[in-house]
């Protein structure tokens, strides 16, 4: 049904991507802006403070915001050029309906008519195939208010179990591991604790490109004497000058963590007091890592024994430390285990919950943290509550004014939703802030599923590649066209401020959702008149939950430059550092610092398993994927910002010269990488900064330039995160002229 329009010139003419450059008033040097709006960058989880220059309802530039304590004016290239996403030629200004006869494949439609059509289709599908036959896909770049509303909309208005979000591709492994080990899913420390740590351990995090501002924290720590240990299959910019670089073989991180713990135990670099008083399960883990002697660790990880011993020595003997990890260890079929392995190292050292002693995952998306706390995840309700817990259901149902029985049970994860589409169990789909056709693995399967949908409505501000399949496209809002809160990398709740009004027929996303609810004649609970009203309901809905926002107000956020949750009451300043001895939490109720009834953290045995698809004779190499600094996720925004496109115009295949020489590939040669699911032909970038058994391709591009044609859809059994970071491939020099 929902066949994508062929990407004809006509389509591109109408919907892009066109790279926008500064022109007109944005290039003028004699313009006084009407106002400077203090807000945050729209891209990654660091949520750097920035001031937008506004003139005549247009964002014309930026001014650094040096008072905001996290980034003090610092920005990456995306933040610098983010202002170019406004007033963009590709911006959707109307609702559109699929119409192959029209130029570009879509025709303009009056907004009200579009809403009526959407409501009619939802009603038709749900009455014929059941409520769960309509699915909702959302995203972690939405403000917390919108994320909350989306969860409420799916459960209360559509009464479907099937809602999930793109955070599923992001930090769910870390979230699941954090909950297993600490009982709470949040960065344990503010970034200021990195500064005075003696050892900073960075596993699977390309900080320089994916969280650039964090670089300054790491270098600052080094100035104060820290040793920096980086674990990565590539020499990323931060790895170049770190103190110890461990070039791990993709997918073998647990082996390393277990090996380090083995050496810590062997040399008695343990905090026995902490382990006894504040943890459970150490013995089982100690028993498990016994076999992970340096020799075995070296064999499995591909890192020299000497380097492993050095790392263990530094980590083991440190008085203070900070461990950071990101998608590199999380995007695996054993992503949760990887994270647990890292956490075991931290718990055994006892270096958590104190000044300069910390642990955190680096969240990826703008609201990666807040977006996973308030109920757009398939198994979760606001306040990080559990949808299968009767008490939690009853509380939230009470806030919403429904009975717990009316509330659907847990649905399935985002990838599984596509499998349900494939099986005909989901017939209709609403998506917002998600571009699965680019971002999900094995994406030719995703395309086939999209084509099977009876009805698909997409809400977005640009017509992204997935929305090309939509029957109806509704024009949503850019980040600067609405207000609301997001929770950044450190767990700090911050406020996005509105700079301009949405242009044309475009509407703030929450208004669109409410309009659909109204057209469905299920308006109850969807009559908010501002994000503040939504936030106030969310505060109540999260009250008493782990992610307790009830004491946070917009005013408190502005006054304190953000409030760290949990913040359970109006006079509570928020909680920058978790797990401090003597700190209270609603689960432990004083019995200890961790979020379990006994107040103790959990050691979890983290067994090593190889990647779902290991190399073999047919596919002898490993493919790993990731990001470049100038692009963001599926590129819907950044592929439309000219200066960012120029910085890294198309994906390249990073390949080591030893391998390249063997395959007869020179720098710049068109090279084909094949997996069992697909192939891609791109220019090679021959560099010594990658393991010779691994190739790397960034994933921000669609269609034939999408590396997710090759990646595997195998998922972690607990977190359901796909294994983006390793699959088996073969590489050859391209024949002919390639693509």
């Amino acid at each position, binding site marked *: 049904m929902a066949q994508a329009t062929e990407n004809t010139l006509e389509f591109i003419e109408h919907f892009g991507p066109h790279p926008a450059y500064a022109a007109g008033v944005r290039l003028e*040097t004699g313009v006084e802006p009407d106002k400077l709006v203090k807000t945050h960058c729209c891209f990654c989880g660091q949520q750097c403070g920035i001031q937008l220059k506004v003139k005549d309802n247009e964002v014309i530039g930026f001014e650094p915001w040096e008072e905001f304590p996290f980034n003090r004016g610092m920005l990456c*290239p995306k933040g610098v050029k983010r202002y170019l996403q406004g007033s963009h030629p590709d911006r959707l200004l109307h609702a559109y309906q699929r119409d192959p006869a029209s130029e570009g494949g879509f025709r303009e439609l009056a907004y009200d008519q579009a809403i009526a059509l959407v409501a009619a289709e939802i009603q038709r599908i749900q009455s014929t195939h059941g409520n769960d036959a309509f699915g909702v896909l959302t995203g972690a770049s939405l403000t917390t208010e919108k994320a909350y509303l989306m969860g409420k909309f799916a459960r209360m208005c559509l009464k479907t179990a099937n809602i999930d979000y793109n955070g599923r591709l992001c930090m769910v492994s870390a979230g699941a591991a954090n909950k297993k080990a600490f009982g709470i899913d949040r960065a344990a420390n503010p970034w200021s604790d990195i500064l005075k740590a003696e050892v900073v351990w960075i596993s699977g995090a390309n900080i320089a490109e994916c969280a650039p501002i964090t670089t300054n924290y790491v*270098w600052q720590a080094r100035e104060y004497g820290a040793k920096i240990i980086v674990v990565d299959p590539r020499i990323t910019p931060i790895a170049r000058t770190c103190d110890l*670089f461990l070039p791990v073989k993709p997918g073998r991180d647990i082996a390393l963590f277990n090996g380090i713990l083995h050496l810590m135990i062997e040399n008695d670099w343990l905090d026995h007091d902490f382990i006894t008083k504040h943890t459970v399960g150490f013995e089982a883990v100690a028993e498990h890592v016994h076999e992970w002697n340096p020799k075995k660790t070296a064999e499995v990880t591909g890192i020299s024994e000497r380097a492993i011993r050095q790392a263990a020595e530094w980590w083991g003997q440190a008085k203070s430390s900070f461990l950071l990890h990101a998608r590199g260890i999380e995007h695996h079929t054993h992503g949760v285990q990887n994270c647990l392995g890292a956490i075991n190292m931290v718990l055994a050292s006892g270096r958590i919950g104190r000044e300069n002693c910390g642990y955190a995952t680096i969240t990826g998306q703008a609201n990666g943290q807040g977006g996973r706390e308030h109920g757009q995840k398939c198994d979760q309700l606001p306040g990080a509550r559990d949808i299968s817990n009767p008490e939690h259901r009853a509380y939230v149902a009470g806030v919403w004014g429904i009975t717990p029985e009316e509330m659907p049970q847990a649905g399935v994860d985002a990838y599984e939703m596509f499998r349900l589409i494939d099986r005909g169990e989901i017939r209709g789909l609403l998506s917002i802030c998600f571009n699965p056709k680019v971002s999900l693995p094995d994406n030719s399967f995703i395309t086939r599923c999209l084509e099977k949908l009876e009805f698909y409505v997409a809400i977005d501000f640009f017509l992204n590649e997935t929305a090309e399949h939509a029957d109806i496209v509704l024009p949503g809002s850019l980040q600067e066209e609405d207000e609301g809160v997001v929770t950044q990398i450190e767990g700090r709740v911050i406020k996005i401020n509105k700079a301009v009004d949405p242009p044309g027929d475009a509407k703030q996303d929450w208004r669109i959702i409410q309009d659909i609810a109204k057209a469905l004649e299920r308006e109850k609970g969807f009559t908010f008149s501002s994000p503040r009203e939504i936030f106030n309901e969310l505060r109540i809905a999260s009250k008493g939950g782990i992610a307790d926002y009830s004491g946070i107000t917009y005013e408190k956020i502005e006054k304190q430059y953000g409030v760290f949750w949990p913040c359970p009451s109006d006079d509570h300043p928020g909680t920058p550092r978790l797990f401090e001895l003597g700190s209270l939490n609603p689960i432990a109720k004083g019995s200890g610092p961790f979020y379990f009834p006994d107040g103790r953290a959990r050691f979890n045995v983290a067994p090593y398993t190889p990647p779902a698809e290991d190399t073999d004779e047919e596919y002898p190499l490993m493919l790993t994927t990731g990001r470049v600094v100038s692009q963001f996720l599926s590129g819907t925004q950044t592929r439309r910002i000219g*200066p960012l496109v120029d910085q890294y115009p198309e994906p390249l295949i990073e390949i080591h010269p030893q391998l390249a020489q063997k395959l007869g590939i020179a720098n710049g040669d068109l090279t084909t990488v094949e997996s069992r699911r697909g192939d891609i032909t791109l220019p090679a970038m021959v560099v010594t900064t990658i393991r010779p058994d691994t190739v790397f391709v960034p994933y921000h591009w669609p269609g034939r330039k999408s590396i997710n044609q090759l990646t595997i859809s195998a998922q972690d059994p607990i977190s359901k995160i796909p294994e983006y970071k390793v699959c088996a491939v073969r590489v050859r020099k391209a024949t002919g002229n390639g693509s």
Partner: protein
Amino acid sequence: MVPEQNEFFMDPNRCIGCQACVQACSECETHKGYSMIHLDYVDRAHSIQTAPVVCLHCDSPTCAEVCPADAIKKTADGVVQTALKPRCIGCNNCVLACPFGVPKMKTEFKLMMKCDMCYDRTSEGLKPMCATVCPSQALFFGTREEIELLRPRSVATNQFRFGEQTITTKVNMMLPKSGKAEYVDVTAAMSERGSGKTISLNILDGMYNEEQSQ
């Protein structure tokens, strides 16, 4: 005037090549739309090292002295400016003679343009664009007290050696305190290819082949 206590400090070793500086530079209002900072990959095939270069604002600027049109001027506070538009004849002498490789020739304008330390900002007490946004703070703008507090293992120098020539600059470079070097011998790096971690020759040599033969 740029407040006297505000100084520019460079620490290329911190650079992560993200190009925030390059992107922000073109937002500066003395040359809007054009980036004046340079960020080069020194040898991308072998290293991810990048070299960010702003104008160092020499005490006696070679670029100005070799200018046949007398078009390059230094302000009283020591900032070497873009060539004067009426005078610059686009001869390229400055581009070729600057020991740091800083000036840029806009051929179509017949005009040399260069980093002026964001004079529109610094003369009003603000920081230059590049140093404000730089996520690694390889480019830092602030007072000497601030830098001493933030970089306890570093010491600033503003002396650079090129063969037999010493150049003193307004911009400082951070050197290791332990190294006791008083100046940067730029030409000592003539055959240097890039430094930092390398994968290949030590840890992993032959690994790919081993796997193949298994």
